[in-house]
């Protein structure tokens, strides 16, 4: 049925993107803080590494993931033993690919947000006796929240649309790794796939627009309450 494949693709895309963000966001929040606020050896190199998926062709990133985590690599086999399957050619691999590709977009607004925070507010908390972790949780994070949410929105959008790294690292297995983008691509390769391609494109537009509108409303709400 035309809709079965479409529903599979949408649900898979949502699962992949949400899992990718569930892992990327905390990493970006913590790593972003370290990069934004501290000077340490290798900081510049780390910044380059973090932004690499942005400048590399996505298929190259997928290929690198295969080299590192493929089923014929020690690390890949270890992960497969640990979790029972994947990550290559598995939905978890699609999530890793999406997460890696989205990471530069997630961390960027977060870095900007941290750098924009008035350091004196944190210092004030320190003079009042708060521990570093508490300062981070009660002062830094709330101030950086709009940036964190913007990073989340961007990352989610990118993860939902990820294609190149996904098709190389997770392949195009219907029902398992065929996300929305891959499903549209498959439909375009088939001589009678026009109907399916059209349906999937309409869904992708709807999901994308909804995501943008919701994130915009949400960020607005947070910003207004921050200025209250």
């Amino acid at each position, binding site marked *: 049925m035309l809709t079965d494949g479409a529903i599979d693709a949408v649900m898979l895309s949502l699962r992949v993107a949400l899992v990718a963000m569930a892992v990327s966001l905390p990493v970006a929040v913590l790593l972003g803080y370290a990069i934004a606020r501290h000077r340490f050896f290798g900081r510049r190199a780390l910044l380059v590494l973090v932004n690499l998926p942005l400048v590399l062709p996505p298929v190259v990133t997928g290929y690198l993931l295969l080299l590192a985590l*493929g089923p*014929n690599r020690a690390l890949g086999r270890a992960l497969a033993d640990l979790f029972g399957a994947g990550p290559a050619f598995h939905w978890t691999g699609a999530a890793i690919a999406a997460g890696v590709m989205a990471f530069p977009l997630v961390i960027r607004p977060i870095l900007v947000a941290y750098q924009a925070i008035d350091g004196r507010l944190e210092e004030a908390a320190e003079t009042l006796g708060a521990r570093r972790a508490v300062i981070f949780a009660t002062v830094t994070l709330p101030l950086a929240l709009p940036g964190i949410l913007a990073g989340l929105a961007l990352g989610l959008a990118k993860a939902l649309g990820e294609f190149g790294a996904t098709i190389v690292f997770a392949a195009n297995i219907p029902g398992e790794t065929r996300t929305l983008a891959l499903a549209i691509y498959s439909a375009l*390769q088939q001589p009678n796939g026009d109907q399916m391609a059209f349906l999937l494109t309409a869904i992708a537009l709807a999901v994308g627009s909804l995501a943008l509108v919701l994130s915009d409303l949400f960020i607005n709400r947070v910003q207004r309450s921050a200025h209250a």
Partner: protein
Amino acid sequence: MRPVLALLLVALPVALLEPNCALGAEQRVPDPIHVFAAASLSEAADELARAYEGATGKRVIVTFAASSTLARQIAAGAPADLFLSAHEDWAQWLEDKGYLRREGRIDFAGNGLVVIQPPGKQETNLPPLDALVAVLPGRIAVGDPEHVPVGRYARQVLERNGVWETIAPYLLPTENTLMALRLVEKDLVAAGIVYSSDAQSGDVSVVGLLPDPDRPIRYVAGLVEGRKGEPDEEDAAGFLRFLTSPAAVAILCERGFSMAVFKGKGGSPC
């Protein structure tokens, strides 16, 4: 400095955009024959093209992808003069839509299906169908059975032998047969189903030949309809005729294709 920079900024795009800017009209290179060929014909078609160029001086450019994908592109107006398909269905589909000419359409080769495994990893002496079941739950790479010819043929064979339901959930569908070959070569999947000609060109362990599908594997070639001007139709038709010449047959046989579909043509090398 400024005027030189300005001049460069203007000259560069112009130079990049004008392909024949250095040539006079008399020196203009004749348009080549554009052939869209099934991925499994990769090295064979390149060799055929070179042979044809050597014999006639006419340039042939070959584009490879799954026959299904190529048919799609041709129907969307891609600049192909000839279509070499690994499955009759896609040639027929194009003809029904008016993009492939009925006259001049020929069958020019056959092939076999084999089960392959990563080099050095063969399932001990099992017949190919049993070997496929034995590698489960490992993944089996094959061109997408929904549209890629090799996948469609494979599905027919597996269904006919009662193992399709068992194996289907473990297939890794690829966009063309060469991708499946590469996955097996790199030991990324447990096994694969490709053409005999693919297995010959790759570095894999061949487990065995699968039974033929009910409709034999047949490569079909035809002239694309609707190409205005461009190279003479004579040139494209010439290459089409070349495909059944002894020289072409020799090249195809050497690459692992079979001429068994043409039993009538006595004395064929393979």
